[in-house]
């Protein structure tokens, strides 16, 4: 066994033992770099070459430019549309946002996997075994990642330049290279971001989560910036905006490369700095706590619960925020679509709403669904804490069951209420960026409104947790599916109002289109309170149960 490991190590370390981490990382990164580079290449080439086939006449191209050129809904989603009359402009518009996101995701996943993941698996321990410091190993890994992204860039560039030679496309090699470089820029930036997050976080998963939050925030900011001409300056505040500002093939502005390069350098140096510091106290390379200082430690059960669910809750908050901006940002156009399509209009009329507000109500219904998932996640997390036996560590000490459950409830209620308010604020931000005429107060209360079904679900979940702990997951999810199906089917087929009334999503008024049904909301809160009250009381006197 020992000999086997030694042999393996021997084989991997090879001739230059000092660069083994660099070579292994480069190999891993380059392998996926080739695959993703090809995806980039196919996307760019196919869109460039197909343009001339689809939009043959100048009139068609002008119409395209008019349709998208000043549409805030599409520019919020896909980025600004410049020079759609040309192959180059169209290609940039069509593929750049998707490639930017893909590149960023690739960068995050690759660097967290190859740096944090490999370290977590103990591969580095085996390879290094005292040969080098962690800082040097990290520097090598960064070098390996650079080699990987170079492969991606090379494959994408080669194909871009080649398709530029096509007689119908006609893009010179210089601009083509500039374009492919711009498209790979987010990949480079998020490789660095991922590496940095890997040093901050305590696990690969957490690093990826933290990186995604940064990506989500960059995307959301960019969306705001692109949704109105007056806010275009905001593009300079987000990495995705810098790439847009490069404006390849249309109005190239290479100086936007400055912040991009600066970000990569800063994050790479930050990574090295943290990597070196992590080394200090301990000296070996397995997964240890690094940034958690004594102040940030969870020192109470409530702190622990918050600490353990913080990644999930942050990810939800980021998604709700981004989604609110997105949906709010296309409210006006969305409203128009609803008004102009007879079938949609009648479908929405069944829900009792119409126009732009109708559209916003649907957007917020989606938020209600998202928040319900948060509620389900919270109650199931409480159950998992019990079934895994982790809770016993607290309850065999002088800590009461009731306090544990009440703290858990408080955490969930805070998350759900804040989540609803966040949904309202984000949607409002999105809507005003699209110059839709909506009132802040009405969207804020419409946001709060979507918390109620989630609160109800959570309350009932707590009662189930108390009486039938092993059924928590199945019952709460079934209840949710029931609510959801009734609401969706209710708008399509005529249902008995008793059935409809039993869906929390139906009880929730379609605000802001309809006034908030405070009575229904009060009933939902009352049910939740009674459930929680009984739940806490019954939980105090029941057997703890494992799986």
């Amino acid at each position, binding site marked *: 066994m020992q000999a086997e490991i030694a042999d393996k190590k021997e084989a991997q370390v090879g001739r230059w033992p000092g660069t083994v981490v660099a070579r292994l990382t480069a190999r891993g990164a380059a392998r996926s770099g080739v695959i993703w580079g090809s995806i980039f290449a196919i996307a760019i080439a196919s869109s460039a070459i197909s343009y001339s086939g689809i939009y043959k006449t100048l009139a068609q191209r002008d119409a395209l430019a008019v349709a998208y050129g000043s549409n805030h809904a599409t520019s919020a989603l896909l980025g600004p549309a410049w020079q759609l009359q040309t192959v180059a402009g169209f290609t940039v518009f069509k593929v750049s946002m998707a490639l930017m996101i893909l590149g960023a995701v690739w960068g995050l996943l690759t660097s967290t996997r190859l740096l944090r993941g490999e370290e977590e698996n103990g591969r580095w321990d085996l390879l290094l075994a005292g040969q080098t410091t962690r800082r040097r190993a990290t520097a090598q890994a960064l070098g390996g990642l650079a080699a990987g992204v170079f492969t991606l860039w090379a494959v994408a560039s080669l194909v871009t330049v080649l398709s530029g030679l096509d007689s119908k496309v006609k893009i010179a090699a210089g601009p083509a290279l500039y374009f492919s470089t711009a498209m790979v820029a987010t990949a480079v930036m998020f490789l660095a971001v991922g590496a940095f997050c890997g040093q901050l976080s305590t696990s690969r998963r957490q690093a990826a989560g933290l990186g995604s939050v940064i990506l989500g925030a960059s995307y959301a900011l960019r969306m705001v910036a692109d949704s109105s001409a007056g806010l275009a300056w905001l593009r300079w505040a987000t990495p995705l905006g810098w790439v847009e500002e490069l404006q390849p093939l249309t109005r190239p502005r290479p100086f936007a490369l400055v912040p991009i390069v600066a970000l990569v350098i800063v994050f790479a140096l930050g990574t090295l700095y943290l990597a070196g510091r992590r080394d200090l106290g*301990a000296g070996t390379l397995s997964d240890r706590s690094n940034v958690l200082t004594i102040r940030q430690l969870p020192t109470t059960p409530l702190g*622990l619960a918050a600490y353990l669910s913080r990644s999930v809750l942050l990810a939800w908050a980021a998604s709700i925020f981004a989604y609110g901006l997105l949906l709010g940002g296309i409210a006006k156009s969305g409203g128009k679509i609803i008004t102009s399509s007879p079938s949609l209009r009648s479908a929405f009329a069944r829900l009792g709403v119409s126009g732009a507000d109708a559209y916003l109500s649907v957007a917020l219904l989606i938020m209600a669904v998202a928040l319900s998932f948060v509620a389900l996640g919270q109650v199931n997390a409480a159950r998992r804490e019990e079934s895994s036996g982790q809770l016993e*560590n607290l309850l065999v000490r*002088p800590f009461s069951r009731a306090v544990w459950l009440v703290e858990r409830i408080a955490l969930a209620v805070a998350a759900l209420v804040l989540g609803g308010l966040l949904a309202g604020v984000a949607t409002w931000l999105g809507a005003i960026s699209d110059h839709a005429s909506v009132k802040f107060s009405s969207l804020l209360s419409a946001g709060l409104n979507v918390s109620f079904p989630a609160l109800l679900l959570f309350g009932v979940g707590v009662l189930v947790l108390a009486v039938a702990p092993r059924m928590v997951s199945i019952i709460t999810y079934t209840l949710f599916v029931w609510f959801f199906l009734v609401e969706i089917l209710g708008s399509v087929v005529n249902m008995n109002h008793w059935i409809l009334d039993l869906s929390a999503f139906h009880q929730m008024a379609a605000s802001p289109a309809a006034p908030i049904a405070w009575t229904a909301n009060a009933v939902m809160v009352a049910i939740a309170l009674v459930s929680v009250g009984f739940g806490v009381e019954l939980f105090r006197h029941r*057997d703890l149960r494992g799986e």
Partner: protein
Amino acid sequence: MSTTSLAYTSGNKAAASQWAVETHGLTKRFGENVAVNGVELLVPRGCAFGYLGPNGAGKTTTIRLLLGLIQPSEGHGEIFGLDCQRHPIEAHRRLAFVAGEANLWPSLTGAETLHLLGRVQGQVDKAYREELIARFDLDPTKKVRAYSKGNRQKLILIGALMARPDLLVLDEPTSGLDPLMEQAFRHSIHEARERGQTVFLSSHIMSEVEALCDRVGILREGRLVEMGTLAQMRHLSALTVEATFSEGSVPDLSGVPGVSSVQVDGRLVRCQVRGSVEPLLKALVAAGVTELLSREPSLEELFLAQYGVHGKSPDTSHDAS
């Protein structure tokens, strides 16, 4: 029993009870299955109590009842005179528990876990904690998910011992520990006893119970079949005798009064004797015994005898040679 009622009326329950652990008719049913059946336990303060029983006898269930994690179907239990179900917080202030399986939070480090558990416990002897970390050779900077099973077990052991509670409740606490760490554990328990702490130890390792405990209770299918000091139990039980004979003169001892479980192994005869040893000695001398060895039964033998399994365990078999 009068102590209990006195305790409730005096209002100073904790001070009044002479028992660290006390149960009356403690019963737990899981559907048809009676896991614990009318158990009457009395564990004096300052004593180390070994709680024995085969797999599924109900040891863990008893402990979970005492900790208030599950509710009794009948009867009740008290810790220092505090009802386990009605006053769990007060009772838990005075005890610490180590489970046989450490279910901790994988994303916390050892140090973070100890910190958290100490905060929840409300009392920690910090100097002693550091001493324990050194004694058990634990690296507290590692994450729980990176610990081996034994290291996780050490972590919950330290988490309990560092509180220096009046009562240590231990349910197979050394599962997964290597012999060196087993030594460290025994050392810590001796330390606790010197400080007057009470120990309630459920274990399968007889040598461990023998070395650490002065009282034992044996549980069988949910019923307490034996309880007393080790000395009492030895006295009541049979003596093991091993006799070696010269070639060809091995006698049949099965008819001798008081003798049971006779085993013949070549020239070696092993048997147990209860009551007077005189008839056996006479029979041995008559048959020309060349070597004679007798000893008190080990706890293991007592335990096995309780379950009607006659014979010896692997680690006593080579005592004869």
